[in-house]
Each structure stands twice: as C-alpha cells, then as structure tokens.
C-alpha cells in the first residue's frame, strides 16, 4: 500500500504533501503536549516494536499470509497523536532506507496510513472501549484502519488518471477487505495476548485499552461516531466520484457548469511549464524548482500559523 514515486500526478502529490507536512507538525506538537517529554524512549522503542512485528507473518489459510500494520495497536497503546507520529516515523524510515514508498508520495502515504488510517482505527476502538464490546471495537478499528488506507490509496491513484477497469477496482477492494479483516483479527488477538501476559507476568504500566481516554458524555460519543462516519464516507465518496468521472462530467454539463470535471485538479503550473520562459527544457526544469520552493513556502507558512501562540518543543 506504500505508493511509490511517479504514480501520483503532480497536482495530487503536491497537494497531499502540502497538506501532510503542516498536519504532521501539528500532530507532533499535540503528541508533545499530551505525552510526557520523557516518553521519547517509549515512543521510539514501541515504534521499533511495531516495525519489527510487521515482519512476523500470519499464515491464514492456503497460500495467503498477512501481517500487522499496527496503526490501531499503537493508537491504543500510546494514544492517537503519538500513534500517528510513530507511524509517520516508520513511513519515513521505510521510504528513505528501505525504498518502500516514494519520497514525493510520502505525503500521500502519511495521510493514508499515518493520519487518517490511525484515526479510523482509533475511533471505533475508543467508542467501544468498555465492557463486552471491547474486542468488537478493536476488530472494527483494525478493519477500518486498513480499509480507509486502501480506499484513500485507490482514490489518489484514480485522481492521478489511472483509469482502473471496474473488475480490477473490485478485485483490489476485495483484497483490501481481506487484509483489513486480518488486521482486525491480529489486533484483537495481540491485545488479548498482551492482557494475558500482563495479568500473569511482571506489571506493566502501559494501558492497552483506550478506556482511560474514553469520552464520558453522550454527545462526545456521538461526535466521535460522526467523525468516523465522515472519514469513511468521504473516502468512499471521493473514490466513487473519481472512478466515474464521466458521470461527474455529465452532471456538470447538465447543470451547465462552466468547467468539465475531466482534469479533476488543475496544476497551478499548468502542463508543468512556465510560459513566460522561452525554451522548452529550461521552463520545464525551472517549473520543478518553482514548485519545490512553493511547496516549501506553503508548508513553512502552514507550520508557522499552526504553531503560533503554542508552546514550542524545547
């Protein structure tokens, strides 16, 4: 599910990078505020644990095997902010050291798996964190987490003009659903095993259920559920909309909208060239440079605005 470089079109990866970078800065600040400064070793070692646990194969039936992704597990152990941050770090290492996922597509991958994936896994686990529904909550959390990541990846590919035939789209959705169910099952069984270990072995201060953070008020419960529904519906909705661009274009035409929906996103540097510059190659090369600077400026500005007035990490 790690999207490599060059598969997303420039408007898609650039937009996602420009969204992801300030958001990660915000998540990092939140994680810093919520968790103790001294928990850095815990965050790092738990990240290394999930990274290593991803290598353990779960042989499920004939020929197929799955592995843990760990977003839900981390969010339950460390809380959603620190969980998202740790998954982002893992993605960074995978892109830089293991060439798993591209560096321009890092923004997309971080949003898919690190931010929205962890959120979609954490919310159900948090909602159903009490009583006999706890295991259900964890399963649904694991399922939603992987499913949302997969849906988002498919959506981004479709937005990048990869016109998947319906059969292929259905096949990959089915594959994601299987993987999502595996993730749910692994999350439940790992949390159960950790609790067994904790009840018999040396005491561990780590809480594996998000119940200590569970909302006490009814309306906050409702708000969480709505947030979850919004994330899932949005990812499905965009996928459907972008998979059927002709339908969208048709609607746009019937409604008399001035724009066709065909290029769903317009690049600010259209056709990747600056027309004012004369020669073709020079303009193309400098468009890249301008784009890079532009993204950096947007991110720096976003980070500055988000961080203004907050206690900085020191």
């Amino acid at each position: 599910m790690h999207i490599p470089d060059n598969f997303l079109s420039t408007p898609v990866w650039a937009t996602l990078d420009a969204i992801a970078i300030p958001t990660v800065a915000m998540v990092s600040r939140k994680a810093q505020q919520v968790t103790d400064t001294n928990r850095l070793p815990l965050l790092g070692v738990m990240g290394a644990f999930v990274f290593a646990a991803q290598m353990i194969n779960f042989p499920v039936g004939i020929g197929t095997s799955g592995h843990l992704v760990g977003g839900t597990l981390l969010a339950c152990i460390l809380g959603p902010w620190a969980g998202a941050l740790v998954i982002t770090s893992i993605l960074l290492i995978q892109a830089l050291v293991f060439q798993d996922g591209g560096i321009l597509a890092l923004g997309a991958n971080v949003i898919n798996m690190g931010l929205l994936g962890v959120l979609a896994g954490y919310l159900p686990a948090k909602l159903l964190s009490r009583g006999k529904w706890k295991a259900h909550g964890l399963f649904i959390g694991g399922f939603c987490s992987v499913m949302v990541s997969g849906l988002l990846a498919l959506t981004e590919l479709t937005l990048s003009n990869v016109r998947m035939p319906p059969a292929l789209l259905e096949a990959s959705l089915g594959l994601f659903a299987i993987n999502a169910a595996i993730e749910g099952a692994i999350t439940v069984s790992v949390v159960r095993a950790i609790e067994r270990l904790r009840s018999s072995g040396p005491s561990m201060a780590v809480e594996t259920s998000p119940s200590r953070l569970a909302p006490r008020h009814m309306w906050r419960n409702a708000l969480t559920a709505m947030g979850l529904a919004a994330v899932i519906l949005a990812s499905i909705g965009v996928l459907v909309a972008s998979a059927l661009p002709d339908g969208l274009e048709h609607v746009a035409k019937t409604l008399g909208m001035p724009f066709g929906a065909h290029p769903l996103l317009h690049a600010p540097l259209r056709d990747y060239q600056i027309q004012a510059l004369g020669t073709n190659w020079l303009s193309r090369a400098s468009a890249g440079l301008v784009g890079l600077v532009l993204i950096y400026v947007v991110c720096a500005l976003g980070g500055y605005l988000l961080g203004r007035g907050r206690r900085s990490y020191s």
Partner: protein
Amino acid sequence: MRHTTFAQWSNQDSIVHAADARVKLALLLYFVVSLALVRFPTPLQLGACLLVLIATIIAARLPLVSIIRISLFSVPFVGVFAIIVYLSGDGRRAWAILAKSYLSALSVLVATSSTPLPRLIAAGHYFRMPALLLEVTQVIYRYFFVIGAQAHQMQTSFQSRGGKPGLRALRASSGMIAVLFGRSYEKAVIVHQAMLGRGFTGRLPSPALRPLGAVDFTLLGAGLLLAFGLHSI
C-alpha cells in the same frame, strides 16, 4: 546484517560523503521532482540519469553491484503498481513510470548510503522538520534492528518446532507479537533509565552543522545545472 553494511557505507570517506547533508538532501529532492515532472522521458534521458547515479556511486566509492542489487528490491513494490497502471490500459505510461520509479528509488538509496543518519537528522532539523518526529525516527531506527532480530529469531524457532499454517499458527503468531511487546516494553524502560543515567533531558543531541560555504553552493549550482541539462536532452 543489512544495517551494519548500511552504517559502514554511510560512514565511508569520499567526496560524496564529505558533501553537506543539506545540499545532498536538496539535490535529491530536486532530482526526484524533475524526474516526476517529465511525463515520458526518452531512453536517452533515462540512460543519462542512470549514468549520473552510477557516476555518483563510483565517486562515493560504494560497491556498485551491491547497491544495484539492493535497489532491485524496490522493483516488486513498484511492479504491483505498474501492473495496475498497465491493466488500466496505459502501457506506455506504465513503462515510463516503472523506469522513473526505479531511478527515484536508486537515487534515494545512493543519497542515504552516502550520508550518516545523524547528519541527515541534523539536516532535517535545519529544514525545520518537527523535532519530536526526527527524534522518534532516530530511536526507531536504532532499535528496529535490535527488536527485528528478536522477531526473526522467534519466527525461526516457530518453524523449527514444526509450526504450520492454520488457525493455531494465528494464535502462536499473536503470542509471538505479545511476547515481543513485553520484551520491547522492558527494553524501553531499561533504555530510558540508561539514557537518564547519561544525562538525557528530553532531547537527543544532534551534530552541529558547519555553515554552508562556497564549496557547498558550487556543488548545489553544479547539481542544478546538471539536472537542467538532463531535461534538455
């Protein structure tokens, strides 16, 4: 194991290793972005990019064959996506993407294996990446190989005791992860105590970067010119 070779490579001595991490990071980004912006690169352009990367590997005195072999690990990941594009009826685009993605992955590999991680982290601090993110990344990178070795060992002992796929294996695997969690948690406590004992105040030290000099700017300019040149052929 792989990380030791990686650490060895990134700590070697060469012109490429001596170059400033910030310059290398900026050039890497520029290279990858310009590659992404050329929709259908000509074989000449692709060949020229490959030559530039190979020249960098040789200048960095890195083992060419091993680097190429490791870079080929990225092909299956990229291949799955390329097959999706191919099946979507865009054969020409699929090949172009496959080639460009491989070159991107190779360039990342060349950059990271010629720069020690602490200096990459310091460059990240310089570019104002979130401090906590960089520090967590450092700790994860350090302990991944420690805990990964344990995970590998557990899997080996599972297989050597006749572990077979099935529902019981699912339980055994989750038990493995739980034990791994317990050990990692203990490790985190011990590591924390050791760090406190060495004067940990909540921040990891990062090596000081020397101010950017004329050599660095010349290198940056030369790199940009080279990328411009690649666009023009």
